[in-house]
């Protein structure tokens, strides 16, 4: 191509190849060398007790399952669980919105259970197939976001709070004020980049319910956020625990489960749910519409709710479990961890956020303005 004539943009695109070309050779050989065709193990496995092909497509969060849970289930039922990962509720929703490409079991958070039920994207569960539902703690057997647990089964729950480095704060940050309305820790704070959560927690700080914000409130909160912005170091993408552990920031708005995980690695980390109360979240097991193996999915849900199984999962992921029977089997160090299980009087002030299709775009737009300010 050395003597080609070219004009404008084509030149760039074409010459890009030169380098790409040289290097591409490597990859093309490189990849081939280390790989072999995956075996289709499903075919020769025995048929599970459900009468369906012994296969299950589980769409889960990363680091959200016990180390041997999937293998154990295969041993118990013969069903081969194929777990793939998503990174946020938004991704999950966007991906399933136009239709289900073959997932059997998904793990949306509470507001997305509501949203997906409203959009007819998940199917009602057959409680007769999930006897282990009785293991769930009473407060998780009937929840505001899914009355009578029609569509979802509890998997974990979480509460937002403040993770902090004990040696770098004057006193435990027990109010949202330190994050939202103070320059005491200027440049050492990271908060969430999720607009809805941010506005609702500001609402909490102002003494309102997370579900009672009005457009006027949003305006007032937006002004507060812009005022506080110079004191914030970053809006993190739910990787706040990493920022805290690396010493990038000293205070971070995060979920208790995430902070509990790093507390086991670094004794200098603390977690507190502010006295104004906070927002609760809960991740739930749901079967998306069009799932190819709904019976297997029911069987797997039932298996996950088993006390022993739940215990093993909890030991790995360290999140608060709504499974009372599993919790009972856990050691005291877990049960008495204030980060994992905040005191009852603190929890009493926490609420679930309702899915609100009118306010969500308003939150987004206001937050875009905050970022642009």
């Amino acid at each position, binding site marked *: 191509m*050395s003597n080609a004539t070219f004009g*404008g943009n084509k030149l760039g695109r074409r*010459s*890009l190849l030169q*380098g790409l070309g040289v*290097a591409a050779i490597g990859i093309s050989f490189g990849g081939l060398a280390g790989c072999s065709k995956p075996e289709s193990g499903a075919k020769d496995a025995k048929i599970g007790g459900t009468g369906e092909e012994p296969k299950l497509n589980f769409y889960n969060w990363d680091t959200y399952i016990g180390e041997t849970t999937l293998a154990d289930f295969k041993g118990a039922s013969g069903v081969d669980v194929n777990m793939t990962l998503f990174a946020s509720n938004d991704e999950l929703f*966007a991906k399933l919105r*136009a239709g289900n490409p073959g997932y059997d079991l998904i793990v949306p958070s509470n507001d997305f259970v509501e949203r997906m039920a409203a959009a007819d994207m998940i199917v009602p569960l057959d409680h007769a197939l999930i006897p282990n539902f009785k293991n769930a703690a009473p407060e998780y057997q009937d929840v505001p976001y899914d009355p009578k647990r029609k569509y979802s089964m509890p998997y974990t729950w979480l509460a937002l709070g403040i993770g902090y480095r004990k040696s770098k704060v004057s006193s435990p940050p027990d109010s949202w004020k330190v994050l939202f309305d103070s320059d005491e820790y200027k440049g050492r704070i990271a908060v969430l980049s999720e607009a809805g959560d941010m506005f609702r927690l500001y609402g909490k700080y102002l003494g309102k319910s997370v579900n009672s914000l009005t457009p006027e409130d949003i305006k007032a909160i937006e002004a507060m956020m812009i005022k506080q912005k110079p004191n914030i170091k970053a809006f993190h993408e739910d990787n706040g625990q990493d920022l805290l552990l690396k010493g990038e920031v000293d205070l971070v708005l995060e979920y208790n489960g995430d902070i509990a995980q790093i507390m086991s690695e670094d004794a200098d980390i603390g977690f507190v749910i502010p006295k104004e109360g906070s927002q609760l979240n809960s991740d739930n097991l749901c079967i998306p519409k069009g799932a190819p193996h709904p019976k297997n999915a029911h069987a797997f849900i039932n298996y996950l709710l088993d006390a022993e199984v739940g215990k093993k999962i909890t030991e790995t992921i360290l999140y608060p479990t709504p499974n009372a029977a599993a919790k009972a089997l856990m050691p005291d160090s877990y049960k008495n961890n204030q980060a994992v299980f905040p005191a009852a009087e603190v929890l009493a002030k926490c609420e679930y956020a309702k899915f609100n299709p009118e306010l969500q775009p308003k939150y*987004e737009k206001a937050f875009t303005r905050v970022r642009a300010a």
Partner: protein
Amino acid sequence: MAGALQDWRQHKRPFAAIVSAPIFWLVLFFLVPMGIVWLYSFGQNVGPAAIEITGTLDNYKRATEWLYLSIFLKSLAVAALVTFICLIVGFPVAMAITFATEKWRPWLLLAIMLPFWTNLLIRTYALMMLMGQNGYANKGLGAMWDGASWLRTLVGLQPLEAWTPVQLLYNNFAVVLGLVYVHLPFMVLPLYSALDRLDKSLIEASLDLGAGHFRTLMKIVVPLAGSGIAAGVMITLIPALGAYLTPDLMGGTDSQMIANVIERQFKRANDWPFGAALSFLLIYAMFALVALQSLRGSRAKVGAH
């Protein structure tokens, strides 16, 4: 171009044989899907997962609000700065490759391209690891600071005060640096390709006639490599304008770029019609840039003859 173009009417059969497959593909697997999104940009949400195409222009009206225009302009400024830095950094590198020996040229090219072969996200995280508060870039700077402090005590001056880590991440500087890191090869290769075709005797003549290296560079090399520079600028500017991962991960509280806003509409905000409108405005803008560029290109070509 060598030879004149053939008129399709005089060669109907070969024309049909050649044209049908790519056109079919482009229409079915590109225009139809993009057409649906384009229609969505004239629609509105009627439920969490339902969109009704009502022919409304509301989305475009919202998308042209000053808020989004200002973000677009800021993104354009950031992308332009990134492109400019890439040009300044990349030009000498491209020159070096051009004037390297036959034996070394492919290896140098490869060295520039190789980082391209690592996943973008992994590369970004690696850069963040280097630039963190307790990262090695800061440690290196700290060591240099301590060294300078020690030197001062040697000559009897007061030592410098203790080193405080510099804030390298989570600001606009980090975004620009990260984007330069990712896009540098995009710039070097077109530049190299243009310089490679340069008649080297022109440079020799200029030097022989007493012009300095810098003068030769500005008066001879840069004008002759003009089309390569323009191509490099386009090929760096367009992806930089569409970047969302780098500002997301490395940016501070005010580092959002237009692609972040678009991404949020499709994911978090679940507002596909608005996301579609924003996307198409961006497409129109970029299309205008490309058209402008090829117009300039063809004009330059006409001028040369």
